[in-house]
C-alpha cells in the first residue's frame, strides 16, 4: 500500500497542496452474532481504503479513496483542490507533525493465531454454555475477530506501518424479562481471550438479579461495576478532546489546572498499551502513541491534542490525532488499593450497578446527564448485596461523580463493547452521594 500512498503524495504535491497525510487501511473483520442461545447471523468484511487529508494555504480538505488507479487519484485530488480553494482559511490551523519518527513494536498487539483462526463458533458456544451453567435461560451477544493493517505516509517525512489483531466477545444472559447480566472479554492475542469467563459473569449476575423490586429514588453511595463505569469514562474521553472542548461538547472547558475530581483519581489515555483494543503505534499524523495523563490526582492536566491544536495552545501534542478531532486510544483509570470485598464493605446503604446504557446530557458544558442501569442492580446493606432492584436511573453531573469517587478497586478490567468505545481500563469504583431517580407514573 505504500506505493499507492507515495503516488498520492506525489500527485498532491504537484497540484500545490501543502500538508498531506495519506492513511491506508486494509481490514478483515469477522462477526458472529447470537441470541436465544443460537447464532442469528455470521458476517465477514473485507475492505481496503485510503483516507486522505490535504491542506492548501490553511484550507483543509479530506476524503476517502476506494479505487487506486492513477486516473481516479488525480481526479479526486483535483476535485478536492477545487473545492478547498473556494473556502476561507482556517485561521487556527498550525500544521502537521514533523517526521520522521522512530516506532517501537508494542507487545501483544498481533497474534498470527487470530489471523489463521478458521472457525470461531466454539468460543460462542463456550460463552453460551458458561452462562447457561450459571442458570441463564437465554443468552445473546456478539463475537468479533479483527485483523488490520495500516500504512501512513505524510508530506512531513512520515512513513509508518502497523499490523494488529484482536478477538472479543460481549455476552448478555437472561433469566426472565428483567433479570439479566452482562460480561465481556477483549484481547489482542488469543491466549488471553476468555469467552467462558464473560459468559459466566453474565450468568452469575443474571442469577443474582432474580425477582427484583422497584428501586427507590434518592441519594445513594454507588458501586459501579467496571462495565458501568467504563460507559461514563468513554463519554468523558470524548469530552477530553480539545475539539469537543472548543465545540461546546465538554464540561472540561476552562478547567485546565483545576481540581475536577477527588484527589485519589488519576485518569490517562494510553495509546501504546500492550494488549489493549485501541492500541496503535502512531496517531493519524505519525506521532508515536504514548501515555498521557488527563487527570492527575484530581487535577485536569491536559486535553487530548494533535499537533495543530497543541501549537495553538503553545504546548506539545499528546499524540491523539485525529487531524480534525483528537481522540482517545485507551482510557485508563488508575486502580486503587481496595479488593472488591473491601469496596463493598465501605457501603452501609447503597446501590451496586453492574451496567448502564443510554447516557445523555442535558447540558454538555455543565456536565448534567443521566444514564440507565441495565442488567442486575442491587441494594447494598452493610457491605452485603441485600436484594436486586429495577427501573432506576442515575441522574447526576459528570464532575460531581468524579469529585465523589472515594475508593477504587485494585484490579483493572478492559471494557470494550457496543456501548463503550474507545476501550476503557477501569476497576470497580465507589462514588458517594449519587442521584438516583425513577419513573413517577
Amino acid at each position, binding site marked *: 500500500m505504500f506505493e499507492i500512498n507515495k503516488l498520492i503524495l506525489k500527485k498532491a504535491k504537484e497540484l500545490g497542496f501543502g500538508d498531506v497525510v495519506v492513511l491506508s487501511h486494509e481490514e478483515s473483520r469477522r462477526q458472529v452474532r447470537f*441470541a436465544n442461545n443460537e447464532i442469528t447471523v455470521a458476517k465477514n468484511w473485507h475492505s481496503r481504503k485510503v483516507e486522505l487529508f490535504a491542506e492548501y494555504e490553511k484550507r483543509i480538505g479530506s476524503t476517502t479513496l*476506494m479505487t487506486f488507479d492513477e486516473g481516479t487519484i488525480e481526479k479526486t485530488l483535483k476535485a478536492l483542490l477545487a473545492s478547498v480553494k*473556494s473556502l476561507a482559511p482556517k485561521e487556527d490551523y498550525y500544521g502537521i507533525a514533523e517526521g520522521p519518527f522512530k516506532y517501537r513494536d508494542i507487545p501483544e498487539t498481533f497474534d498470527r493465531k487470530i489471523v489463521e483462526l478458521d472457525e470461531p463458533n466454539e468460543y460462542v458456544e463456550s460463552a453460551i454454555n458458561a452462562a447457561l451453567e450459571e442458570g441463564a435461560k*437465554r443468552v445473546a*451477544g456478539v463475537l468479533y475477530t479483527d485483523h488490520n493493517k495500516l500504512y501512513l505516509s505524510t508530506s512531513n517525512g512520515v512513513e509508518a506501518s502497523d499490523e494488529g489483531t484482536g478477538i472479543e466477545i460481549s455476552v448478555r444472559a437472561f433469566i426472565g424479562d428483567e433479570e439479566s447480566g452482562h460480561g465481556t472479554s477483549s484481547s489482542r492475542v488469543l491466549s488471553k481471550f476468555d469467552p467462558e469467563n464473560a459468559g459466566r459473569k453474565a450468568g452469575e449476575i443474571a442469577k443474582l438479579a432474580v425477582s427484583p423490586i422497584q428501586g427507590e429514588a434518592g441519594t445513594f453511595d454507588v458501586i459501579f461495576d467496571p462495565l458501568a463505569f467504563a460507559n461514563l469514562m468513554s463519554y468523558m474521553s470524548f469530552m477530553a478532546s480539545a475539539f469537543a472542548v*472548543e465545540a461546546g461538547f465538554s464540561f472540561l472547558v476552562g478547567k485546565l489546572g483545576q481540581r475536577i475530581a477527588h484527589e485519589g483519581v488519576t485518569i490517562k489515555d494510553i495509546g501504546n498499551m500492550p494488549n489493549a483494543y485501541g492500541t496503535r503505534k502512531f496517531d493519524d499524523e505519525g506521532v508515536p502513541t504514548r501515555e498521557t495523563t488527563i487527570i492527575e490526582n484530581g487535577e485536569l492536566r491536559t486535553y487530548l491534542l494533535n499537533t495543530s491544536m497543541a501549537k495553538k495552545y503553545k504546548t506539545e501534542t499528546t499524540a491523539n490525532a485525529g487531524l480534525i478531532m483528537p481522540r482517545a486510544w485507551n482510557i485508563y483509570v488508575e486502580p486503587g488499593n481496595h479488593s472488591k470485598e473491601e469496596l463493598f464493605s465501605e457501603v452501609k446503604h447503597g446501590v451496586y450497578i453492574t451496567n448502564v446504557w443510554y447516557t445523555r446530557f442535558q447540558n454538555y458544558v455543565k456536565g448534567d446527564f443521566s444514564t440507565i442501569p441495565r442488567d442486575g442492580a442491587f441494594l447494598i446493606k452493610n457491605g452485603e448485596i441485600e436484594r436486586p432492584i429495577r427501573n432506576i436511573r442515575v441522574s447526576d453531573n459528570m464532575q460531581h461523580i468524579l469529585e465523589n469517587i472515594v475508593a477504587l478497586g485494585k484490579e483493572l478490567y478492559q471494557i470494550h463493547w457496543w456501548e463503550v468505545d474507545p476501550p476503557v481500563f477501569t476497576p470497580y469504583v465507589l462514588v458517594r452521594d449519587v442521584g438516583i431517580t425513577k419513573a413517577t*407514573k
Partner: protein
Amino acid sequence: MHELVEFAVEKAQELGASYAEARFEEKNGTEVVMKNGNPEGLGILADRGIGIRVLVDGGMGFSSTNLLTKESVFDAVKRAVKLAKAASKVRNKPIQFSEESFHEVFYEVRMRKDFRDVGAEEKMEYLKRIEESVLGSGITVPMRFLSYRDFMWHKIFMNNEGAMIESIIPRVSITYNLVVLEEGQMEQAPFVQRAFSGGLELIEKDEPWERALNDVKALRRLIKEGKKPPEGKVDIVISPEVAGIAVHESVGHPYELDRIMGREAAQAGESFVKPEMLGERIGSEAVTVIEDPTIPNSWGFYLYDDEGVKARPRYLIREGIISEFLMNREYAAYLGMKSNASARAINYNREPIVRMANTYLAPGDHTFEELVEDIKLGVYMVSFNEWNIDDRRYQQRYIGREAYLIENGEIKHPVRKPILEITTKGLWSSVDAVGKEIEMFPGTCGKGEPGQGVPVWMGGAPARLRDVVLRR
C-alpha cells in the same frame, strides 16, 4: 454494476444458498464544517461496495467487499455461504423468510436545486448565514459548531426471488450546536438538525438560520427569566418535537419485532411488548401512531425496503390499541405474517434489520389554543435536551430545554429543566387531546451491531397529558 450484483446472487445459489441477495450501494457527497467562525474543513464522501446475504441450511451469512471485481465479489459470496453453513450448526430452528411478491423497479427523488451543481463555497454560505444570524442577535454565543452535509445514495438490490430495486435518493442536512452565555450562565441547544431527502431548495425553504436565531433567543430568555417549574401532578402539553421523541422511543422501538423476539438483546435490548399484545390497549383513544417511510422529502424516505419489499404506512397504535409491529421477512415469518417493509441497512457493508423510518403522533381535532385553554397549572414543553429510556422501552425521561409555565389557560414565563420521567403506558394513557398541526424533526436512529445510524423523522401533533408528575 447490475451485472456484478446479479453475478453475486447467481454464484450464491450455485454454492448452495436457498436464499441470496446482493446490494450495491454508492454514496457521493460533501460535508463542510464551521467551528466558532473558522471553516474547519471540507470532506468529500465517496464510498461504494457490495453486500451479500444468504441463507444456507437455515443459517444466515453476510459478507461485503469494496473491491468491485468479479473475483473479489465471488470471494465475498464464498465467505457468506461458508459462514451461513457454519452458523446453521448452532441453531435450534432454521431461519425462514416470509413469502412476498417482488418487483423490478427504478425510482429516484428529484432535486429542484441540485447540490451537485453547487460549489463548496455556497454550501459554506449556509453555515455563514447561521453564524451571522446568531452573532447579529446581540446574544453572547461563545461556542458554535455548524455542519452541512449532502450525499447521493444509489442502491441496486437483487435477490433470487425476482426483486430488482434500484433507487437514487439525495439527502441534505444541517446540524448545529450553540452555547449561549449570559449573566455567567451557559445554556445549550446541542445537535439541532434539519434534514430532508431532496435538494437544496428544502434547506432554503426551511431557513435553519431563523431556527438558530429563535433557539439562542429562547436560551437567553431562559437564563434571564427562567424560573423553577411546578412540581407534582400537573398537565403537560408536549410539542411535536417532544411527541416525536416519545413516539420514536416508546412506540417505534418496542414494536420492532426482532427486538421483541430477542435478536438485539445483547445490544439495544428487548421490549416490554410481546407478540400476544397485538390488540391490547396501551394508550388513550386519542393516541394513534403512524410509521410511514413513503412521506415525500422525508429524512427517513424509501419506497422499497432493503429486502425489496414495497413500503406502506404502518399503524403501530390505532386509537390506543397496539395494532402492528415493524417487521422484516425473517421475523414476519415467525408470526406467519408478511413483512411490512421495515428492513433497512445503512450501507453496503451492513445487514438489513428492522428499523423505523418516519414515526409520528397522528393529528387530532384540537387547536393549540384548545389544548392549553383549560389547563389551570401546567407546562408547555417545546424542546428537549436530555432524554433516555431503558432497554425494554418502558421507563423514559425527557428534560425540557425550551419550556413555559401554563397558568389558567395562558402561556407564561420560561421554566428551567422540567423533568418528565414516566412509564410508556403512563405516558400514552395520560393523553386526553391531540392537536391538529403536524411537524416533523430529523434524527439518527441507532441500532444494530456494528451500529447502523439510520436517518429518520419523528414528530407529529402536539398533545396534552393530564395529571402527570413533573419533577425539577
